[in-house]
C-alpha cells in the first residue's frame, strides 16, 4: 500500500466527528458496565432526592394554596385599641368604617360586626311568657352592615340579607344565624316570622346557612347596625371585618388607619394577613431547605464518585489513550471522550433519578391523598443537571487523560 493523497483539512465525511466521539464514549462505558451502574446510581440518588424535594414542594404548595388561601390569607379584622393602662377604648371606629375602608385598593368587601349586650332572656320568637319552659341558651344579638355577609363569605339558607335600604332607614328587620334560627324555632321566612328583642319585634327576612369567618354570626340574631344604634343603644362598631385580595394585606394595613381616622391613624388594632408568598413559603421552606441540601450533598457525592472512578479508568486505560494518540487523536479529543463518557453517566443517572423522583412524589401524594403536581420542565432540568454534573466531574480525569504521554504509555505493554 502506498500513501493516499494528503488532505490538510479532512471533510466531515472523513473526520472524527462528535457522533464518532459519542460512539467511542458509549463503547468505553459499555466495556465496564459495573462501574457505569455504580456511578450512575450515585448521580441518580442525588437527582432523585432533588426531584422529590422540588416536586414535593410543588405538590405541597399547591395543596397549601388550596387549603388556606381562600380564608386565612384573605380575611382580616380591624378593631379599636384598648388603652393598655386604663382599658379604655378612646377611639371608637366610625359608623361608616366599612365604607371608608371598602374604597381601598385590594379590599374585596368590608363590613362591621358588633355584639350587643341585651338581656338574653328577652329574646324570643313570640312574646309568650311560659314560666314552665326550661331556660335555654338564648342567641346573641349582633349588629352588622350590609356588606358583612359578603365579607365573611356567608351564604343565605333562606330569604335575603340586609340591603342598603334597611341600613339607611334603620328598619326593624333581623336575619338569623342557622343555629339561632334552630333555637328560636324559625324554619322559613316566607310567612314573615318575627323575633322579639325585649318588647320590640323584628321581622325575620333571612337565615344565614354558612360563613367562612365570623362564625359567631351563626348563633346570633343579626340586625342592621343603624337599627341597633337607634333601638339597642349601640355606641360604636366593635370590629371591622375585611376580605382582601390575596397578597393585599400589607398594603391595606398601611392604608386602613388613615382611611378610618386621618387624625389618629395608628390607634387601631389592625390584624391582616401578611404577604401571600410568605405564607406559602413558611410552610414549605423548612422541608425544602433540608432536603435540597441533602439532595445537593448526594449529587456532590455522585460527582465525586464519577471523578474518582473515571480517574481510575484513566490509569487503567493508559494503553488505550496512547494508542488513540498514536492513531492520530488530539489531546482535546482524548479529553472530550472522557468528558463525553462521564456526561453520559450523568445523563443516565439524571434520567433514572428524575423518573424515580417523580414516582416518589406520586407515591407520597397517593399516601396523603394529595394531587401530585410535578412540572415536566423539572424532569428535563433534572436530566440536564445530570449531564452537567457528569461533565464537571469528568473534567479533572479528562485533563489527566489528555496529559498521558503516548510514547511512555505505549511502551508499557497492553
Amino acid at each position, binding site marked *: 500500500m502506498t*500513501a493516499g493523497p494528503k488532505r490538510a483539512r479532512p471533510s466531515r465525511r472523513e473526520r472524527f466527528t462528535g457522533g464518532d466521539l459519542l460512539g467511542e464514549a458509549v463503547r468505553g462505558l459499555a466495556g465496564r458496565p459495573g462501574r457505569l451502574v455504580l456511578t450512575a446510581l450515585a448521580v441518580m440518588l442525588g437527582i432523585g432526592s432533588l426531584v422529590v424535594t422540588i416536586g414535593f414542594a410543588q405538590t405541597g404548595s399547591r395543596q397549601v394554596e388550596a387549603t388556606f388561601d381562600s380564608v386565612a390569607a384573605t380575611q382580616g379584622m380591624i378593631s379599636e385599641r384598648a388603652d393598655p393602662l386604663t382599658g379604655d377604648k378612646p377611639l371608637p371606629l366610625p359608623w361608616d368604617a366599612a365604607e371608608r375602608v371598602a374604597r381601598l385598593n385590594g379590599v374585596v368587601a368590608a363590613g362591621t360586626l358588633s355584639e350587643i349586650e341585651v338581656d338574653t332572656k328577652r329574646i324570643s320568637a313570640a312574646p309568650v311568657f311560659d314560666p314552665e319552659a326550661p331556660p335555654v341558651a338564648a342567641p346573641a344579638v349582633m349588629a352588622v352592615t350590609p356588606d358583612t355577609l359578603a365579607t365573611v363569605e356567608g351564604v343565605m339558607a333562606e330569604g335575603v340579607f340586609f340591603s342598603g335600604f334597611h341600613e339607611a332607614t334603620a328598619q326593624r328587620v333581623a336575619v338569623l344565624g342557622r343555629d339561632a334560627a334552630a333555637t328560636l324555632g324559625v324554619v322559613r321566612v316566607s310567612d314573615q316570622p318575627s323575633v322579639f328583642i325585649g318588647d320590640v319585634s323584628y321581622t325575620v327576612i333571612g337565615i344565614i346557612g354558612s360563613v367562612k369567618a365570623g362564625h359567631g354570626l351563626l348563633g346570633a340574631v343579626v340586625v342592621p347596625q343603624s337599627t341597633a344604634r337607634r333601638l339597642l343603644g349601640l355606641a360604636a362598631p366593635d370590629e371591622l371585618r375585611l376580605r382582601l385580595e390575596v397578597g393585599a394585606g400589607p398594603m391595606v394595613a398601611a392604608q386602613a388607619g388613615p382611611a378610618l381616622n386621618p387624625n389618629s391613624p395608628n390607634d387601631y388594632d389592625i390584624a391582616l394577613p401578611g404577604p401571600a408568598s410568605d405564607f406559602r413559603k413558611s410552610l414549605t421552606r423548612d422541608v425544602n431547605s433540608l432536603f435540597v441540601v441533602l439532595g445537593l450533598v448526594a449529587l456532590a457525592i455522585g460527582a465525586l464518585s464519577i471523578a474518582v472512578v473515571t480517574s481510575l479508568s484513566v490509569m487503567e486505560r493508559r494503553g488505550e489513550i496512547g494508542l488513540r494518540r498514536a492513531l492520530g487523536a*488530539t489531546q482535546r479529543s482524548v479529553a472530550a471522550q472522557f468528558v463525553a463518557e462521564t456526561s453520559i453517566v450523568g445523563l443516565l443517572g439524571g434520567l433514572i433519578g428524575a423518573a424515580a423522583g417523580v414516582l416518589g412524589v406520586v407515591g407520597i401524594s397517593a399516601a396523603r391523598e394529595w394531587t401530585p403536581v410535578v412540572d415536566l420542565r423539572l424532569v428535563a432540568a433534572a436530566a440536564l443537571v445530570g449531564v452537567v454534573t457528569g461533565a464537571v466531574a469528568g473534567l479533572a480525569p479528562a485533563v489527566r487523560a489528555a496529559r498521558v504521554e503516548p510514547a511512555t504509555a505505549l511502551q508499557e505493554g497492553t
Partner: protein
Amino acid sequence: MTGVDGIEPVIALEGVSRTFAGAVKVFALRDVSMRVAPGDYVSITGPSGSGKSTLLNVLGLLDRPTIGIYRLAGVDTGPLGDTARARLRAAELGFVFQGFHLMAKRTVFENVLLGMAYAPVPKAERQERVAAVLEQVSMTHRAAFFPATLSGGERQRVAVARALAKGPAVLLADEPTGNLDAQTSGEVLDLFGELNAAGQTVLVVTHDPLIAGRAARRMAMTDGRLEER
C-alpha cells in the same frame, strides 16, 4: 523537497538532536540525518539507551527534536502545532507496537476499523478497507473474533492490519516481535517482507540483529548517533 535521486523521501531528518534537560544534560539524539524513500525497508538497531526509542518517538511525531528539521511525507513538522501533528500522524503513520495494544472488548474487525477512526479516510470506504487489509494479513477468518482468543502472532497481524488500513506513508514498528516466539516472529517478519514487496515503506526498530537482517537498509544507533551499514 526532493531527494538526491529526484524522489521525494517519506522521511527526511536533517541534523536532528534531542536533548533532555536535567542535572546532567542527556543527548538522546546527536545530529541525526536520514532519508527514507518510498518503498524502503529500513531497520534501526541499537542497544537500549542508544536513543532508538527517542528516534522512534520523533519519527512518530510523539516527540519533537530539540534542533534539526524533520520532514514527513514532504511536510516540515517543525512549525506544526499539536493538532496539525495529530492530523499528520493520523494520515501518514501506521504504528505497530511490541504490546499489540488491541482493544479487548472489540472484535478483530472493530479493532482494525479503529485504526481509521481519526484518519482522513472516507467513512463509506472504511468497511471495505478493513476487509481488504484483513485479507492482506490472512486474518479474514478471524474477523469476528476477540483478541483474547487469538495467538500472539495472530494478534500482531491484526495490529499490522490496523496500522495499514488507512494507507499510511510509512509503517513504524517498535520491537514488533518482542512478545513472540521464534516461529511466529518469522511469520510476522514474512508479512513485513510481503508488504514491502507490495510497495509499503517499512521502518522497524529492534535490538535483534536477526530481525534487522531482513531489512534492505540497516542502520545502527550508538550513543545517539545513527549510521547506515
